[in-house]
């Protein structure tokens, strides 16, 4: 693998992991918020 191969691998892993983690949080949040009464869904 040449230098660009390592560079691209790093960038893809970083952005891929962060995107996947963000997606997991959003999906779980949507699923869990349906199980919580509306009055307990206010956090701000």
């Amino acid at each position, binding site marked *: *693998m040449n*230098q*660009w191969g*390592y*560079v691209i*691998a*790093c*960038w893809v*892993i*970083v*952005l891929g*992991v*962060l995107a996947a*983690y*963000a997606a997991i*949080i*959003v999906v*779980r*949040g*949507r699923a*869990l*918020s*349906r*199980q*919580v*009464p*509306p*009055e*307990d*869904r*206010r*956090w*701000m």
Partner: protein
Amino acid sequence: MTTHLTHGERPSDASGGGSGEPAPIGTGSRGTRILGAAALLGVLALGLVGLLVSPEDRIQGDLVRILYVHVPSAMLAYVACGITTLGSAVYLWKKSRWWDLVAYSSAEIGAVFTGITLVTGMLWGRPTWGVYWVWDARLTSTAMLFLLLLGYLAVRRIPAAAPVRSKRAAIVGLLLVPNVVIVRQSVEWWRTLHQEATIFANGLESEIQGMMLFAWFLGVVVFGLIFAWLLIHRFRLAWLQEQIEEHGLETAIADRRAEADLDASPADRTPAAGVSPPTNPTTDAEAAR
């Protein structure tokens, strides 16, 4: 941000959440959508600057472009550890549920960023040092930090009452910042293969300049935005999980009480078959006379 909450206090009580606005579905809000959009634009700009605009390094060549994601990941991992230690300390002091959840959320994100730092470091090490891994002080201490973060998350999963679980995790959380200091100083304290500080090598002076410095700075800003977005969403998710846990416990207790009442009621009201009701000996004796 959210106001300080203590045990037994609902977020709506603390923030005036009963403002008549519809309850959100999911963990998003207007603020996080703006933050998310800014982070996405930042990622595009970072890709443009880091991969195309910034020049290659005189010694490292194009490999220097790994710096723009590796170093910000490491820095945000340290920030996450700092927030976890702070949250843990405040939890132990004030028993603040809000800080406990912040510490928990930050630790999970810290584990993700530390994992990214280790993997990108290994991918940078292979073409630079010839090996993916070496038991160098910086690499080993970072691996220890990663294990400590996983340990914190594992402690939170040990079944126990919520305050006990939080207290145990908070004690582990206190160890994170001292570990970060060891990671940060490892290149100074020991002879290592990993290079010394590049950015703040001599106070505020940097070893890199121009477009490279700008790309690094942009990376820190963009990763900071991503971190903030993740922390807010992860905190809200933790909040929802706790609400469900509490509601589940309340429902289970109510169900058990209802069952117990149901079981007790027939025995109280009617005697069981074949068993005479208790008699009053005095009354019986008087009746016989």
